[in-house]
């Protein structure tokens, strides 16, 4: 089967000013690669501020104007050009954003969903979609500020499912929800995947990612540092990168041990392994190499010269 979405060596950078008139280029995502097959949920997990949302925006070609993208994005095996994405976004490729701030505060939910179309067919389609997530007709008459957090998420999932999409990009669809509601929302995504859509699930919550996804891509300082199967998270020994392992130990059910130190900001990166500052098994070589390549390893991928080496955690 062919992947519905294939990203090859994607890099995103921004031009910005800092302190006075100095201008510099800031790389937020570097050398990111991933594939999503139909029916698969692929999670991209990384700490806040690691540029995950930009990944979603770059696929949809809605990045801010001062950004610059390199690498290839393939949809259905062919290059996703700006012209092509303009036709596909909102129909075959859809976004489920973070929260209620993504709905126009002055427009009723129904009007907003229909994107200006008024024919009975469209109306029916969105009504069914809302219904599917337990939202009645009266929801269409509400303004966004009248929706609860969970309702807003369901409205946005409905907006996605109504299009019968082949690729769904979900950008942090659960924060701020209680465990039960979040669980239901995740269930909805699983359902959509089982119906054949590929899902890119962007989250800061690795535990959640490992529960809902088939594959998990771990993000660190703008780079993919590991790609793992969901089942690898059952046992820390199956994980490849020291950062993923540290995150594993930080999960409440595995001892709640906080990760020491903090991620470097995009502007402060040096050559060599970016995790070096926090890595307990860091060696000379990790700092001397110009870049650490992402390489296939044990059924997944890892960006580490000495993977699977147990640190003294």
């Amino acid at each position, binding site marked *: 089967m062919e992947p519905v979405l294939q990203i090859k060596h994607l890099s995103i950078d921004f031009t910005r000013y800092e302190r006075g008139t100095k201008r510099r280029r800031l790389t937020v995502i570097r050398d990111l690669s991933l594939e999503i097959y139909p029916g698969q949920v692929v999670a991209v997990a990384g700490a806040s501020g690691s540029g995950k949302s930009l990944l979603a*925006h770059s696929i*949809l070609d*809605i990045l*801010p*104007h001062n950004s610059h993208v390199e690498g290839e994005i393939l949809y259905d095996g062919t290059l996703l050009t700006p012209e092509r994405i*303009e036709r596909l*976004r*909102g*129909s075959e490729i*859809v*976004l489920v*954003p*973070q929260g209620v*701030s*993504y*709905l*126009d*505060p*002055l*427009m009723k939910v129904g009007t907003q969903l229909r*994107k*200006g179309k008024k024919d009975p067919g469209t109306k029916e389609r969105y009504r069914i979609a809302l219904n599917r997530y337990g939202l009645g007709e009266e929801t269409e008459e509400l*303004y966004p*500020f*009248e929706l609860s957090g969970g309702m807003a998420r369901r409205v946005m999932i409905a*907006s996605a499912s109504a299009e019968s999409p082949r690729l769904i990009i979900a950008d942090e669809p659960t924060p701020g929800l209680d465990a039960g509601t979040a669980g239901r929302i995740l269930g909805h995504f699983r359902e959509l995947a089982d119906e054949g859509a590929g899902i890119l699930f962007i989250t800061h919550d690795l535990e959640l990612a490992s529960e809902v996804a088939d594959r998990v891509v771990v993000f660190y300082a703008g780079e993919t540092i590991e790609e793992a199967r969901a089942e690898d998270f059952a046992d820390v020994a199956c994980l490849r990168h020291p950062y993923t392992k540290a995150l594993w130990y930080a999960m409440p059910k595995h001892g709640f041990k906080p990760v020491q130190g903090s991620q470097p900001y995009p502007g402060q990166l040096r050559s060599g392994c970016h995790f070096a500052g926090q890595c307990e098994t860091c060696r000379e070589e990790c700092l001397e190499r110009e870049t650490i390549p992402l390489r296939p390893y044990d059924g997944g991928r890892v960006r580490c010269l000495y993977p699977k080496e147990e640190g003294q955690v």
Partner: protein
Amino acid sequence: MRHRLEFTGKKLFRMGVLLLGVSLVTFLLMCASPLDPLQTNVGQTALGSMSPEQVEKLEAYWGVGIPPAQRYIGWLWDVCHGDFGTSLLYRQPVLEVVGERLANSAGLMFFAWVISGVLGLALGVAAGAFRGRWQDRLIRGYCLVITSTPAFWLAILLLLIFSVWLGWLPIGLAVPAGTDASSVTLADRLAHAVLPALTLGITGVANIALHTREKMVDVMESDYVLFARARGESARSAVLRHGLRNVILPGITLQGASVSEIIGGSVLVEQVFSYPGLGQAAVTAGLGSDMPLLLGITVITAAIVFAGNLAADLVYGAVDPRIRKGAAGR
């Protein structure tokens, strides 16, 4: 609904107190003036040649020598009975002078207000939508130049071009000089009002457009416009469906606040075109120390400004679903 009424009532009360403050401040400022109304209006030499009784009579007419507190309370008492006093220069009741002048100015100001509102909104939305491109630069450039131009100089410039050089339009006054009021045609009136109205409109547009642009830029960077684009809405739809809708609310407030600026502009512009409107009357009253008239004009102008703001608040509340529904739920 009850909430809205309560809100309106509170605002009206506050407005009343503010108007009282305006009248008191105006009165005190005029009282503090070292300018002697007799000297400015009658003249030093004429005063010197008058008998003491005549001077005393004049002083009584101009209100010299009455304790300020007594004068103010007297004025306030009369106002409560619907009498704003008599203009000393025009020798007519203040309300009559103001009514007549306001009728002349109202058309001008209303035209300028509507034009600046509609055009300002359109230009601001366009500039915000085309942010950073040549359309934006052009509109912003225009606004910057116009906000840096004194309204009265713009008026002089238009006068030079259209009346002196091209000779298309008359030089001044609301009607042709020397014609009977009855023989004045609508065309005459319009011809005399075109330039002042144009000047006011041109200046008013700039401010509204600049503020609208700022708002529009914010809206276009908002999450919901991003989502609309992600859902396949075109740039056009994002601007017209979401941009315009969200810019209109702050636009209402702007439009209410612009009343004050248009009245201020009319004072200068009417002077240039010697258009017999409220602004010109204010200048005449100020130069001639005509206390009752200036007091009346200031209070009535302030009332119009406050009314504009209040109207904007009320319309805002009726349009914004968050306020409308929030009130209904209470």
